[in-house]
């Protein structure tokens, strides 16, 4: 499906290509609409007044756009350090994602390019252990973090997640696809492991490292259970856990508008960051992996 530009010329081919392109657009546009509808409807509902939600029945858009749900939330939020939460999240998620990229890239190189006995068995063992659900491990994990003196410190959110095996697996999967001729050529030129890693491998797996960064950033941003456990001080909270404090304990549905408003608020930061980074992100994906240099 890719690379249709070089289909042999001819009217039949061009026509078929155009038809398939139109089908493609229609399908994508329809899907995109479906994908956006829940978000759009949530946003619209968050601007309906409680009274309108109660009496007007179903309507896609509010009859009267009101900001009361947001006003209530912002008033409630005013007694909380929301801005501080946002900064905390930025610090935590950015450092976690950056460190993940470092640790994972190194490990990926080790598990694909270094030769030592039991290498693959070691990796598969790590992967196997990581498959076990960790719900009950919450208590021992806390104990470890506490022993390290990290309770109430951002380190409690930045470091433990680095132990994940999934990202190593992902990077290893990509590195396995990088032709060995490249590093062998470099080795012939006298390059050591670190130079090959930094100058040959890293550039060719940049797209996947960016994916790893994105995944670990959002994963850390959206985590809300662990931060509640490791922070004893609401000033230290990241924003996702913090926003939950604005929600009523019984998930009060008579305040549907408010619930939607808080859900929308929770969506905004990551979405904005993603949209801002999207251009850089995409151009990196379309590098064609820099395989040629």
């Amino acid at each position: 499906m890719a690379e249709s530009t070089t289909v042999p010329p001819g009217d039949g081919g061009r026509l078929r290509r155009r038809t398939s392109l139109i089908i493609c657009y229609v399908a994508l546009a329809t899907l995109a609409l479906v994908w956006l509808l829940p978000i759009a409807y949530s946003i619209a509902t968050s601007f309906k007044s409680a009274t309108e939600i109660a009496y007007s029945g179903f309507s896609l858009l509010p009859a009267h756009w009101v900001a009361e749900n947001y006003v209530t939330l912002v008033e409630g939020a005013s007694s909380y350090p929301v801005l501080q939460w946002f900064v905390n999240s930025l610090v935590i998620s950015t450092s976690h994602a950056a460190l993940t990229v470092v640790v994972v890239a190194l490990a990926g190189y080790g598990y694909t390019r270094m030769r030592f006995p039991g290498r693959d068995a070691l990796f598969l063992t790590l992967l196997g252990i990581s498959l076990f659900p960790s719900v009950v491990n919450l208590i021992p994990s806390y104990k470890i973090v506490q022993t390290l003196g990290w309770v109430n410190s951002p380190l409690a959110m930045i470091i433990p997640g680095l132990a994940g095996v999934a990202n190593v697996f992902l990077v290893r999967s990509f590195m396995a696809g990088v032709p060995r001729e490249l590093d062998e050529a470099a080795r012939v030129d006298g390059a050591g492991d670190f130079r090959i890693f930094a100058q040959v491998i890293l550039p060719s797996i940049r797209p996947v490292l960016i994916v790893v960064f994105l995944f670990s950033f959002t994963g850390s941003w959206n985590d809300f259970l662990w931060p509640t456990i490791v922070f004893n001080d609401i000033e230290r909270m990241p924003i996702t856990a913090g926003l939950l404090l604005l929600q009523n304990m019984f998930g009060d549905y008579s305040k549907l508008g408010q619930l939607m408003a808080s859900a929308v608020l929770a969506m905004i930061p990551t979405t904005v960051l993603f949209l801002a980074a999207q251009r850089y992100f995409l151009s990196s994906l379309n590098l064609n992996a820099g395989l040629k240099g």
Partner: protein
Amino acid sequence: MRRALRAAPFIGPHLVLFAVFGLLPGVYGLYIGFTRWNLLGDPQFVGLDNFHEILFDTESVFHDQFVNGLVNTLIFVAVSVPLLIVIPLLLAAGLSRKDLKGAGFFQGVFYIPGLISVSAGAIAWVLMFNRELGPLNNLLGTDISFITTQPWAWLTIFVLTVWAGIGGNLVIYRSAISAVPRELHEAAQIDGAGTVRRFLSVTLPSIRFPLLYTMVLTTVGSFNVFGQPMMLTKGGPNSSTKVLMMNIRDLAFGTGASIAGMAAAMSMLLGVVLMLISAVQFSVMHRGIRG
């Protein structure tokens, strides 16, 4: 030995982190599976009792919960994994067309739900399925009790799962496809291969490792499903969407005293099932790759 030392700077950092934050709590979790513990007092060692009761005691409530939860989890996995692989793969192939404008926009749209936490996404979909205010029944002119009747209850869960879940795999596939050397396509084209043939014989084999990765990890994620049924159906109707993870969490951190030993034993068993399935995936994929 010397080779292992040379590898140390590369795999060492991760290995140490894994030992401290992955292995250590994991071993402790395993130990808890062999105890009776309420997370407060001192754990009492009970040997294989928990495992025996869960697996073989047909009179036991915990056995019923495990079996019912596991069956529901398997149903979820069997439907959602193929959806979460095939849909993003087709989308990635479509978005990789060179003559398609706005690929970035579309990818952004499909990825946005992945940026949202499950709870916020579920709140949005609960509203979509809402009887009084939801667009679905109201726009389609139907009268379906989405979250309380089957098969609709499962449908709502799959809708939320696919909506929230395709973005991640889509990004991986796009990134993998962009790394496929152009020369391979050109060579296939000279051989007269059409679009579909080239996708099957050039693209797919070139992205086989990322494909294996997504298959294994999507399966793991699906086995750990919890948020979607929790937020949408609460496991109903009649426990038909109550997945194993809901039972495990309910036992460990429920409305009453914690029954952590039983929960840990169920986690272990779920982990074993997952390992077996991943092993099958690995061997099948590797055979496919080599053969």
